[in-house]
């Protein structure tokens, strides 16, 4: 059996890096190193001697890293981007997912492909998770806004909470806008009319 691969994951996003690491360990890779900050990366590469390097495409230092892989004395064997030219779909999927892999000279593609595939699927899963989180965050913000708008109506017009919400909803429907937009307008207007009212 071939020796265990040394895998280096360079990602400024620590959570995503951990998700990749977990995936690699689940797949039986024991020698995984995470690097969040590229400062001093040449020395780290000399220490780790990675066979495979996984980098996120949002990393502004990719040009520096690629240059270092080709030239640096720290890199004992040349490192090249992993491009399986027979598999255009896989290259596209990697760029789409926002990840790239580099391998040392002479690495067989059968050994690298599963690692890249795993990184792609974990990057995509992370992006979906972020989108959902963003959605939840947005909904929470909206709910807070609506609560404040209800409070203003209850106080200024003596409405019950239910009636205040009904008024917001009716106004939104009449104006063909979202309730949260109406709530935002009301909160802003109340703040302008009486800076003390909404404090």
């Amino acid at each position: 059996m071939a020796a265990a691969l040394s895998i280096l994951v360079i990602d400024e996003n620590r959570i995503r890096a951990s998700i990749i690491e977990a995936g690699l360990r689940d797949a039986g890779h024991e020698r995984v190193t995470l690097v969040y900050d590229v400062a001093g990366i040449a020395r780290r590469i000399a220490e780790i001697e990675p066979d495979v390097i996984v980098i996120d495409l949002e990393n502004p230092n990719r040009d520096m890293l690629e240059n270092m892989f080709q030239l640096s004395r720290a890199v004992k064997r040349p490192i090249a981007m992993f491009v399986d030219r027979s598999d255009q779909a896989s290259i596209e999927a990697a760029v789409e997912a926002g990840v790239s892999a580099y391998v040392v000279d002479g690495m067989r593609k059968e050994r690298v492909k599963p690692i890249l595939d795993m990184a792609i699927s974990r990057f995509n899963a992370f992006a979906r998770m972020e989108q959902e989180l963003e959605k939840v965050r947005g909904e929470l913000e909206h709910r807070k806004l609506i609560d404040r708008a209800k409070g203003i109506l209850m106080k200024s017009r003596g409405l019950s909470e239910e009636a205040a919400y009904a008024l917001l909803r009716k106004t939104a429907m009449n104006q063909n806008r979202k309730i949260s937009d109406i709530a935002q307008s009301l909160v802003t207007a109340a703040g302008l009319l009486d800076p003390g009212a909404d404090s």
Partner: protein
Amino acid sequence: MSADFQIRAGFMPLLDSALLVVAREMGFAAREGLELTLVREISWANIRDRLAVGHFDVAHMLAPMPIACNLGLSPLAARTWAPMALGLGGNAVTVSTALWSAMTAEGALPDLDPTMTGIALKAVVARRGVQAAEPLRFAVVHPHSGHNYELRYWLAASGIDPDRDIEIVILPPPLMADALGAGRIDGYCAGEPWNTAAVDKQVGRIVTAKAMIWKSSPEKVLGVAARWADANPEALAALLRALYRAAEWCGAADNHAELARLLAGPGYVDCPPDWFMPALSGRIPVGDGVVHVPDFFLPQAKAATFPWKSHALWFYAQIVRWGQVTLNAQNELIARETYRPDLYRAALKPLGVALPGANAKIEGALMRATPVGSAGASLVLGPDGFFDGRIFDPDHIDDYLRGTDAAG
């Protein structure tokens, strides 16, 4: 009216993304029936990758990049054409305030003259060598960039071996000023506004400009995926016309304030608008004074968008000079064919604008602005001299390289 063609273009946050930004924002693309989508990128590697996999049809590219791609020097290389240049000049060399002090002690003056600042830098490098100090570290944006080659050209002509006497590292342009301020690098060559950024933050001094190392010299091109260009000749021609009109708009001094405001926007370069004015006005701040470099950045004048094959071959000669590829007839042909003045001419013909009579010229031969024969209208070229007086004849690259060996 819906657009006839949709084009996706990648760009990096730099002054010379101006032609693409203006083509979109000032309606030149729409007038040619184009819906031009601009996507800001964070590395040149991403630009190259996304062009290769078809996310982008065209891109703002470092002029040597398409040549490097076609020579197989890039990890993910799709065939790429350069049918248009995106201006001339626009870069500068900036050093830390500490290095500037050391250079002034060796006689450097705040005049941006590359001969004199080069002599001073050479003296600093020699002194550090005697003291066994760490070699100076300079940054450029990419190994296959005008920045790398013009910095090396300046250093070598000043008697400094760019590989032995100093260290050259790669950094993205928006991070240069902070790296200089933090002492991680001693100097850099980058496009605007990232030199002005260091001056504004008071961490660096501009010591010379690309336009003074080599006047009227090439910098960025429109890189076009060959596969897309072959399948969409009409869309490409329309884009070249839109970019030409955008270049004319950018070249008019009356538009510079608005251009600065456009580029400064959060979706583009995302910086103070003032940072663009030195390059656009040619008034470069040096300490307490200002040096006037009228051709610091040329978006349109002097055939600034024409893809000269002699520019492609000069870059190829530098790629060979610095050991990135071997000199042979096939590689020379690949470099020559990467630039596509034929596509430029065909696209611009309906506009009736001034076009150069030839596709290549001897670089460095024009000492002053010179009217040249052109189809239809008048055209002025040059001066295009190198600061060390060397001439580049694109038909005799081997002789040229023998000359640089002897000098370096």
